[in-house]
């Protein structure tokens, strides 16, 4: 099918704010999306979790908007909204009926310009408790909940900005002061560190006029700090293994491999390898481990597309009751080995591409996703046109390139094997903290 091209404009206001507008009038809806070039990789030791805590604080009001009123105004306008934080960035977004676009832009401008003066200790304390409950809910009180924190700790060396998870540590969250939060805002939440994308039913000239009106007076920060050198050797250089006892009924083996950073075409090939290995019933790992040999309840392979230094390819297999964990690990690694030694068939590659194409078209059909992608490619690569070039890039990958990319990373001296096993029954309650007996508080 024809690949639709997203047409957009791309410019900067005098204060450095990058404005991208992609008009499309199919539906009477429009998305506003702001990416701040700040994520958990910008945090320093002792202050982990700040970027994410800050994201919560951004909904606590600004000069002309009360606490939680941002949510109320957008929802009453018939809109949806949220904000998310990840290692490389923080984003905020609203999708609204098109006649409410100006409100969404004004709300984003008001908090970019004036959040600092409105923040109170009371609201910070409240959101600190909310975030601690988010951590308990998403990590601590969930089977296998500590895996991501452990995996990042094993994948990235101590002191590397990807070493700690975005949620941070309870101790650092407790220690966050109003002054810390204000300094964070003054440093990073400035127009020259942000991209605003507007996609959907809008008028480009009108959007530009509103951007100037509402964002134009916000002062830039002329001294945005540079990131430390995040480069890493291409491979880990050793195999790292850890076993965790947890309150889980089934063992699960997590795998991780250091991989080329997001943006490198070799990572595109690894994405397609993931599709070939675990994308659906016909995929290699699913077919062998789940269907034929019935060793696993489920399997996964996917990439963590980090942009600085090195990304990662992650996977897991959940071990069926009564099956030897070692056997599952061996079968899993054997399939990775095969992909690393022989190029997948043309038919396999074609199917992986067809599904990738359909996924991409489905995602880009929604204005919310289109705006997010434009902000992402502009922030991470200074190249919003990647919204149109990524799919052709995937479609151009050959079977040999998939094999070569797999061979380069799926090796013993580049892997982490993190195995969760059921805690033996009869463990005393004192040994448990609900999140795994070998839970390591110092890791963050």
């Amino acid at each position: 099918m024809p690949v639709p091209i997203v047409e957009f404009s791309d410019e900067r206001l005098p204060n450095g704010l990058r404005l991208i507008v992609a008009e499309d009038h199919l539906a009477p809806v429009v998305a506003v999306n702001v990416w701040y070039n700040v994520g958990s990789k910008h945090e320093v030791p002792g202050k982990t979790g700040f970027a994410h805590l800050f994201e919560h604080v951004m909904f606590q009001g600004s000069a002309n908007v009360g606490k939680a009123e941002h949510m109320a105004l957008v929802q009453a306008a018939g809109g949806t909204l949220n904000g998310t934080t990840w290692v490389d960035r923080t984003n905020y977004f609203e999708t609204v009926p098109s006649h409410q676009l100006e409100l969404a832009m004004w709300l984003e401008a008001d908090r970019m310009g004036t959040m600092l003066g409105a923040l109170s200790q009371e609201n910070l304390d409240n959101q600190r408790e909310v975030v601690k409950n988010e951590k308990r809910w998403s990590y601590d009180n969930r089977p296998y909940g500590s895996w991501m924190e452990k995996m990042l700790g094993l994948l990235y060396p101590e002191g590397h900005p990807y070493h700690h998870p975005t949620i941070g540590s309870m101790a650092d969250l407790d220690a966050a002061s109003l002054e810390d939060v204000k300094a964070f805002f003054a440093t990073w939440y400035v127009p020259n560190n942000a991209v605003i994308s507007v996609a959907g039913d809008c008028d480009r000239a009108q959007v530009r006029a509103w951007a100037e009106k509402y964002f134009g007076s916000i002062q830039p920060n002329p001294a945005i700090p540079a990131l430390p050198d995040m480069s890493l050797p291409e491979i880990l250089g050793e195999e790292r293994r850890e076993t965790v006892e947890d309150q889980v009924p089934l063992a699960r083996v997590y795998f991780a491999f250091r991989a080329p950073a997001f943006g490198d075409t070799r990572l595109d090939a690894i994405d397609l390898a993931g599709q070939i290995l675990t994308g659906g019933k016909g995929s290699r790992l699913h077919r062998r481990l789940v269907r034929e040999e019935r060793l696993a309840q489920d399997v996964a392979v996917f990439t963590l597309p980090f942009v600085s230094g090195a990304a990662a390819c992650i996977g897991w297999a959940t071990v069926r009751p009564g099956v030897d964990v070692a056997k599952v690990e061996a079968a899993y690694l054997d399939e990775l080995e095969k992909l690393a030694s022989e190029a997948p068939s043309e038919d396999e590659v074609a199917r992986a591409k067809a599904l990738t194409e359909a996924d991409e078209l489905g995602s880009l059909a929604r204005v919310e996703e289109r705006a997010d992608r434009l902000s992402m490619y502009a922030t991470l690569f200074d190249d919003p046109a990647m919204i149109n070039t990524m799919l052709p890039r995937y479609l151009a990958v050959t079977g040999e390139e998939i094999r070569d990319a797999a061979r380069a990373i799926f090796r013993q001296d580049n892997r982490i094997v993190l195995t969760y096993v059921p805690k033996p029954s009869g463990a005393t309650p004192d040994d448990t903290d609900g999140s795994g007996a070998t839970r390591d508080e110092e890791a963050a």
Partner: protein
Amino acid sequence: MSVDGMISQRPVPGEPRPFDFPDTVRTTLANGLRVIVTPMPGRELVAASLALRAGAADEPDAVGGATVLAARGLTEGTEVRDAIALTEAAERLGASIHAEAGWDATSAGLDVPASRLAPALDLLAEVVRRPSFPEGEIERLRDERLTDLLQARSDPRRRADEAYVSSIYAPSSPYHRPAGGAAATVETLTPAELRVVHTSTYVPSRAALVVAGDVDPDEVVRIAESLFGAWSGPDESVPDPIDDTSAVTSRFVRVVHRSGAVQSEIRIGHPGLRRLNPDYHAVAVMGAILGGLFNSRLNMNLREEKGYTYGASAGFDLRRARGPFTARAAVNTEVTVPALHEFLAELDRIREAPVTDAELKAARDYLVGVFPLRFETPGPVAGSLAGLFVHRLPDDELDRYRGSIEAVTAADVLRVAREHIRPEAAAVVLVGDHDAFGEALQAAAIGPVEVIRDADPVAPPADPVAPAAG
């Protein structure tokens, strides 16, 4: 007021661009199959699904789980080809077929580029009309379901959901158990039970083919006629009423104890109302105010004021019979009992006095305003149309939706809160560390407390499990 040159004046909304639910063409084939097509020009990725009025609530208790397993079994092989060949054929079209069943319906569907719709519908017809339910594959699916049930017991959220429904419905009700069946019946299922589900409920009189996207309705009807025209089966009989008997006559507390849990999963409520209840629109507004919007009373109180939780909400699961009304949150262990007080206070408050004009307006404006966002792409359009068919709602239900919401008054909200929320006859279900809050819970006198100690939430594997050697 102006801070740093910022504009304090809030923008006034422009003129709304008119939006109507897209025009939909409905046809009935001679065998009774409904064909429902919504052309959405410019939407190249088409959503297609075959919806069947074949739900888990209709199956006999003895084969609990058969309907869900049958749906999952559809893509495990047909008379024409095995599961792998089927998957690969779909993937070559850029599509993956998904099939699932719930309490009221079974659905098999796919998203596919418009140019490949005909071969994709061919595959869809094949899995719906001619599944072979191969013995080995069905046995595997059954074992996967049993293993999933084992996993559910160790996950605090899923354990809470399971304990909650079994607390609020009488054992005679199918809603007492999971839609996918409990272990005792799932382990007895074989291809024979699945074939019974298929023969008796996968019939054209219970089915609708729903297609949305950049398609020509005449063309879709022609394709449907060629693929489904010869499909036959008994006429749909009048369905038996579903037993939705409540097990809650007065308030009680049930705690599933998990030693050392850092949070308590809370579920509070009772059987709610049917989808076809005439209070549907008023309940939507009331539910949004109580626990649906971000700024709902529950979330503002428990999250934004108290910081007890990452999110508190409440809502009605609307089924053919009375699905659950549930208020829910996960709170840190120390505040478990104070959080229960806040929940119960909010359930009382919504029944005691009318909501404010501002609350009413915010909820109505949200539900009305978000309507065009809901139907931006073909998937949700097809899903909503399938829902109308399943519940036998009139064709113009979605056209009347916004007007009906706008007509809801504060008096309506108060009336439906009093009628459909019953804090004095609610089950309060907790999964958490009873050792930490048990005394306070007893002292709070919320209701009689029962503590369940899962024998061993972690089932020992049959073989000793040793980590692999390095």
